[in-house]
């Protein structure tokens, strides 16, 4: 038997049929979706603990800070901006949680996929291109955000602090807030060689933003110059948007919030295309 005709011939292993195993599909799955599917597969190992966490965190926060601390605030200052403190706080925390998930999922997992597990490299050896790899990862982060936000909104409903059908739109709003962070952070993570930059990012950007972007109190409480700083942060716009939606106080300003968050996501994605290509296609 000659080497070249061995395949499929009598006595061959039938393992190598040169292309027959990959049957052409009517509609090919987009490449980025194939990348996203990988992360979903990964998630299946840990989804239970992840879902329990996404349920417990809002319950604990809303009970402790919203209801317990909130009763003091409500007694002394009659709520915040005309609503109870828990109703004010919940959408802020929702946006803040989305920021944290978006950031978390775009730091260590991105670096790991480049350096430790080399997931991206495995994907790039398959038919995926570098942009598919980036878009697929962001798409997965969006899907995970959607799961978390859905649970969060259900908890809010159980607390009786969802005031309007507009609240349904808090689902895409929360996802958008998370991606407004995930996209630029992923772009940044791809430029890093060590994870030490991530703790700096948290210490000097994420945590201050979480505390001072209107999550826990209206930014009108801040001194003038800090108010300007808060106004530029993406989180402020995420918080305002989510709050207006769950409280049913939607206005034209919310279009501005959406536009600002979309701009952050778009700029981040464009930067990510550059940094991913520079890092992975050499």
């Amino acid at each position, binding site marked *: *038997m*000659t*080497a*070249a*005709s*061995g*395949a*499929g*011939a009598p006595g*061959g*292993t*039938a*393992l*190598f*049929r*040169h*292309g*027959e*195993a*990959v*049957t052409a*599909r009517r509609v*090919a*799955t987009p*490449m980025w979706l*194939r*990348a996203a*599917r*990988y992360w979903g*597969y*990964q998630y299946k*190992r840990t989804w239970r603990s992840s879902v329990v966490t996404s349920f417990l965190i809002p319950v604990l926060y809303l009970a402790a800070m919203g209801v317990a601390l909130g009763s003091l605030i409500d007694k002394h200052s009659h709520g915040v901006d005309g609503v109870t403190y828990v109703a004010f706080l919940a959408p802020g925390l929702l946006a803040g949680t989305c920021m944290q998930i978006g950031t978390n999922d775009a730091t260590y997992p991105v670096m790991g996929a480049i350096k430790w*597990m*080399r*997931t991206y*490299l*495995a*994907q*790039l*050896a*398959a*038919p*995926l*291109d570098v942009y598919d790899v980036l878009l697929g990862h962001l798409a997965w982060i969006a899907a995970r955000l959607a799961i978390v936000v859905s649970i969060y909104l259900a908890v809010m409903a159980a607390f009786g602090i969802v005031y309007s059908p507009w609240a349904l739109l808090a689902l895409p709003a929360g996802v958008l807030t998370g991606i407004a962070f995930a996209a630029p952070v992923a772009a940044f993570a791809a430029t890093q060689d060590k994870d030490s930059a991530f703790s700096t990012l948290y210490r000097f950007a994420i945590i201050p933003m979480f505390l001072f972007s209107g999550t826990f109190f209206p930014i009108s409480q801040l001194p003038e110059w800090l108010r300007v700083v808060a106004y530029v942060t993406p989180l402020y716009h995420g918080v305002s948007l989510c709050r207006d939606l769950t409280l049913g106080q939607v206005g034209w300003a919310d279009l501005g919030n959406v536009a600002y968050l979309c701009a952050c996501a778009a700029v981040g994605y464009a930067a990510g295309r550059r940094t991913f290509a520079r890092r992975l*296609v*050499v």
Partner: protein
Amino acid sequence: MTHVPDSEQTRPDAASAGSAGAADVPMVEAHGLVKRFGDFVAVDGVDFSIARGESFGFLGPNGAGKTSTMRMISCISPLSGGTLRVLGMDPASEGSRIRARMGLVPQEDSLDLELTVLDNLMIYGRYFDMPKKVIRERADQLLEFAQLTERAHDRVDPLSGGMKRRLTIARALISDPDLLILDEPTTGLDPQARHLLWDRLYRLKQDGVTLVITTHYMDEAEQLCDRLVVMDKGRFAAEGTPRQLIEAFSTKEVVELRFAPGQHEELAPSLAELAERQEVLPDRILLYTDDGDAALAEVARMGHVAQSTLVRRSTLEDVFLRLTGRTLVD
């Protein structure tokens, strides 16, 4: 989308895999291929062509440019110069389509250590958009082939280096590729694991899979490669079948002589005329000659008493060291 001639667009079916029509298109064809990293030239204008069903090797010391060449063939690294066609297509514009028909075994494993052996195959097949059922059937066959059936449901992390390597190869074969690219497939493995791997790769070769291999193990190259190039400093130092290379760059036999310490420098001049070429190393003298026994008899007749002598056939290693030097490259 670029138009591709029909002969390249349609895959040859199993029956015609060896027919002349399909074999006419080289699997890989490179002209003046260059790879630069800043000022450093890793690959400095090389030409080669790899035919269907051939097993082609890149040999060379570390830093010779083997991996850079492989990464360009794998369409994961853009060229800095020259032209390259893989499976009749242009990597710059059709990298994705090329990779869909190619299996890549990178130098460093990129397996998902947290997942099971089977899951790693399933995930990889999904990148190629294969239906789950098809992947599952094929995974079973490949696990059998890679002797990993018993470990199918174990996590990858605790597996031995040889098992991980075999899994990486099985994974690269999940999409039934026309071309399998292996970058140092057995580096770091123990002898048993290496021999098992060679046996598996030899079977692939028998099945008509085109193999492209880099290695710095000469026995590996001799066992697996129909044709090979020796790379040094980004260029090809030689090209041919293992036999051709030995004939061209070495003698039939080599006599290794070991004398008492200090005697080597003193004896070398008188021994030089016994061989076509002589090499004086710190611990021994090598005489390259077509008749080793005759040379050895002559050494004895001259009255030199060696501590140990060895007459052996030339190997690719002799060719390799002659072409790339004995200095350590790091």
